[in-house]
């Protein structure tokens, strides 16, 4: 009840509202601070609205990892990389003496996998194409790649799947697709070279990953790994009209 009284204090009540019949909207004559209910709750950082509810978010266990406000939010709080805000990471191990196969170890192992660059196929072949023409690009490297590593004595299977493809055409243009392209006559990823010249198009493949420990369930590996491919020399020439006698 105390919470409601405090909440009402935020609401500027100008006139008492008359009794309303069933189904009718109450005669609204007062205006709150703008922004809506949730915004006013969020903005109340100092807790002037004392909520008597002890409803606590989350079915998650309290000793799991979390982000918290403030530099000394918890013992062993770790600063974050990527932000200058006053937020730290609290990692609570349930068994502090046993080294834990953490996501950090998995991510590092994934990054160190030395995944292959995707194979780039260009059509027409043999490094020669025409200007103002749909030069076709695709890759055959689309299958997931599985590797088994040992981490902290456990057998961990890592699986990397090519997910996005960055086609750099060498003339300053590039394209990112989730489509790996396809061979002619399908034209999925094409590029038009406007000027004749020699270009070095290349393909960078971004892999997403998942892992399992032993025969356990598959889990996502957060983050991605991108492998750059080497360029292929490609000469774009102008088609010369040739008069053929007939």
């Amino acid at each position, binding site marked *: 009840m105390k919470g409601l009284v405090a909440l009402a204090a935020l609401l500027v009540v100008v006139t008492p509202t008359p009794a309303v019949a069933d189904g009718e909207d109450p005669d609204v004559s007062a205006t709150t601070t703008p*922004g809506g*209910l949730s915004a006013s*709750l969020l903005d109340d950082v100092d807790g002037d609205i004392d909520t008597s509810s002890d409803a606590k978010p*989350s079915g998650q266990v309290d000793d799991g990892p979390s982000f918290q406000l403030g530099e000394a939010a918890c013992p062993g709080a770790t600063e974050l*990389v*990527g932000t200058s805000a006053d937020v730290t*990471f609290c990692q609570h191990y349930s068994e502090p003496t046993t080294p834990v196969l953490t996501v950090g170890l998995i991510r590092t192992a994934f990054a160190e996998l030395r995944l292959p660059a995707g194979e780039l196929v260009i059509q027409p072949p043999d490094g020669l194409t025409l200007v103002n023409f749909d030069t076709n690009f695709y890759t055959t490297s689309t299958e997931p790649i599985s590797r088994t590593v040992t981490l902290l004595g456990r057998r961990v299977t890592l699986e990397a799947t090519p997910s996005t493809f960055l086609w750099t055409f060498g003339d300053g243009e590039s394209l990112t697709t989730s489509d790996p392209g396809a061979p002619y006559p399908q034209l999925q990823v094409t590029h038009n070279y406007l000027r004749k010249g020699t270009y070095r198009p290349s393909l960078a493949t971004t892999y997403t990953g998942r892992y399992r420990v032993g025969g356990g369930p598959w889990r996502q590996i*957060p983050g991605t790994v991108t492998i750059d491919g080497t360029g292929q020399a490609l000469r774009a020439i102008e088609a010369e009209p040739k008069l053929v006698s007939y």
Partner: protein
Amino acid sequence: MRSLRAALAASLAALALLTGCTDDDPSPGDPTSTWTPTGEPETPTSSATAKPTEPPLPDAATKATEEGARAFITYYWDLINYAQVTGDVEALKRVSGSTCRGCSRVINGISDLYTDGGHAIGGEYTLRIERITEVTTPDKAALGIEAAIRVRNQEQTIVQGSGESARSVPATSRYLIYLIWVNEAWRTDIVEPR
């Protein structure tokens, strides 16, 4: 003569038998006169009268990527919109960290309003993510997302359990949100004004 008439009568009788015409048969009626449409024509139910259902977790929001984080943040505000007009904060609780003070303020505030017999009408937020970056620790043990967002509410009527009501006009509010990827899912751990 007689044989001809007899023959004629016989053939007429045969004809009558062949066609099966009797006075008892109903004549085939105009088809449209007997068909009547059954059932009510479908009309879209007005969203103001239909009870809203809890927004489901979109598949896109289950991915540990920046796109997944964007989808999750959108989902989180869909849950706030839903909780405001129903008082149902269960889904919000599930996806908020236990140490998230901002989350608690919203969850408890909405919960209190409805427990005391009040409710809210309208006030739906539209969300815009202004900036989103990945955050982590030096040993990569954590995967997090920092997002600077902007929300704008539609007009809202808040009715207290006492019957008092008030109106909240549209306005833009800005927040900093931190998501953490834990237990194969995103979770909101911080929501604070910025």
